[in-house]
């Protein structure tokens, strides 16, 4: 026994020996079993991209319904659906270009590089992912008005059309922003164990994320109540 060895190190060494945790002499077979969380985010961005491109299917099915009544609302459906498709294609191309991060750096450097990379990607990612529900909402609203032209004068429908989509985009992007912040917090949390300043920043960032989540929840509640109220007033 090494006289310099601590009691805990001795315990750890014995366990390693007893368990015989040795090498399994094999090459990694495919990537299906073990998937890094970063790959999962990339897949979720790609799925969202395909969902946007799926607007083409909707257009294909909906266009015959608009035949002969190409109003401004029908052109709006077409425009917003095509915007969704373009954004989806951009999203797929962008996520494909993300390089594989190198894990072969000292931990602090790797984590700091990850943090910087995701900080730079975060605004665009939040806006892109937040656009999906907003575009779907806008297309639905316009399709409704195109098929029911008599209802386009109602205040509630006008409000939903002009304010609903942009507001939903804003809120969904804000939610995505907070979701991505949780990712960054995890990296900062790991960095915090190595760096005293990072520990303080981590605590501040955690509080900020908590406040934002509470604010988003409150705003959604207010919107829900306002929507219900408008519906009753319109009746």
């Amino acid at each position, binding site marked *: 026994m090494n006289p310099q060895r601590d009691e805990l190190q001795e315990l750890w060494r014995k366990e390693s020996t007893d368990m015989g945790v040795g090498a*399994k002499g094999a090459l990694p077979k495919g990537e299906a079993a073990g998937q890094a*969380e970063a790959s999962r985010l990339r897949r979720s961005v790609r799925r969202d991209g395909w969902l946007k491109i799926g607007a083409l299917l909707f257009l294909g099915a909906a266009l015959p319904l608009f035949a002969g009544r190409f109003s401004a609302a029908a052109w709006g459906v077409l425009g917003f659906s095509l915007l969704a498709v373009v954004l989806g294609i951009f999203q797929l191309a962008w996520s494909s270009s993300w390089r594989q991060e190198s894990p072969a750096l000292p931990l602090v450097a790797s984590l700091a590089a990850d943090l910087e990379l995701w900080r730079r990607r975060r605004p665009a990612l939040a806006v892109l992912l937040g656009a999906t529900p907003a575009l779907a909402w806008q297309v639905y609203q316009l399709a409704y008005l195109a098929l029911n032209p008599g209802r386009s004068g109602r205040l509630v429908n006008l409000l939903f059309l002009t304010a609903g989509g942009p507001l939903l985009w804003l809120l969904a992007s804000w939610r995505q922003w907070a979701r991505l912040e949780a990712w960054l917090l995890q990296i900062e949390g790991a960095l915090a164990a190595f*760096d005293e300043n990072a520990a303080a920043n981590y605590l501040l960032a955690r509080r900020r994320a908590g406040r934002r989540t509470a604010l988003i929840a409150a705003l959604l509640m207010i919107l829900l109540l306002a929507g219900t109220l408008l519906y009753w007033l319109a009746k």
Partner: protein
Amino acid sequence: MAEDTDRQREEAYLGLLAQHGRIAPAVARLYTPPGEDAADLEQEIRLQWWRSLAGFAGRAKASTWMYQVALHTALTFLRRRRRRLRPEPLEHAGNVADPFPHAGGREDRRRSALHGALARLEPGERALAYLWLEECSHEEIAAVSGISANAVGVRLHRIRKRLKEMLGTGEEER
């Protein structure tokens, strides 16, 4: 020509695995949440070793490089599991239970308690504690983590104290 390069890469990989492959299951076990299978993370670590082998080129000690890749992969893996893994404050750490309990005698219980105590450290601290348990020198830990050897000494002093406090509390309860 390309086949020769592939074979060389494969041989280098298998050689490294034979020498230091035990790092993968040990790190996977350290960073896998209780009740989950560590095989996914273990596989991911092996995959990252394979992928980044070309960038290794023997500039660092093989073990240093393998610790770096394994720990970075594990910390990346943890990002989305933050809430489930957030450690309890030290004062609540009386009952130090191992997520992978050992059946058996006193020593088995002590090992179990050690794993439980490690699971309660912050992920970065856990990396430093693991490297210390693996008997890496301060210089090697500094090379893996990227902080200075002096800072490693200070951090390890605190971490060892915390580990011993947690284990002391756990043993008193038995």
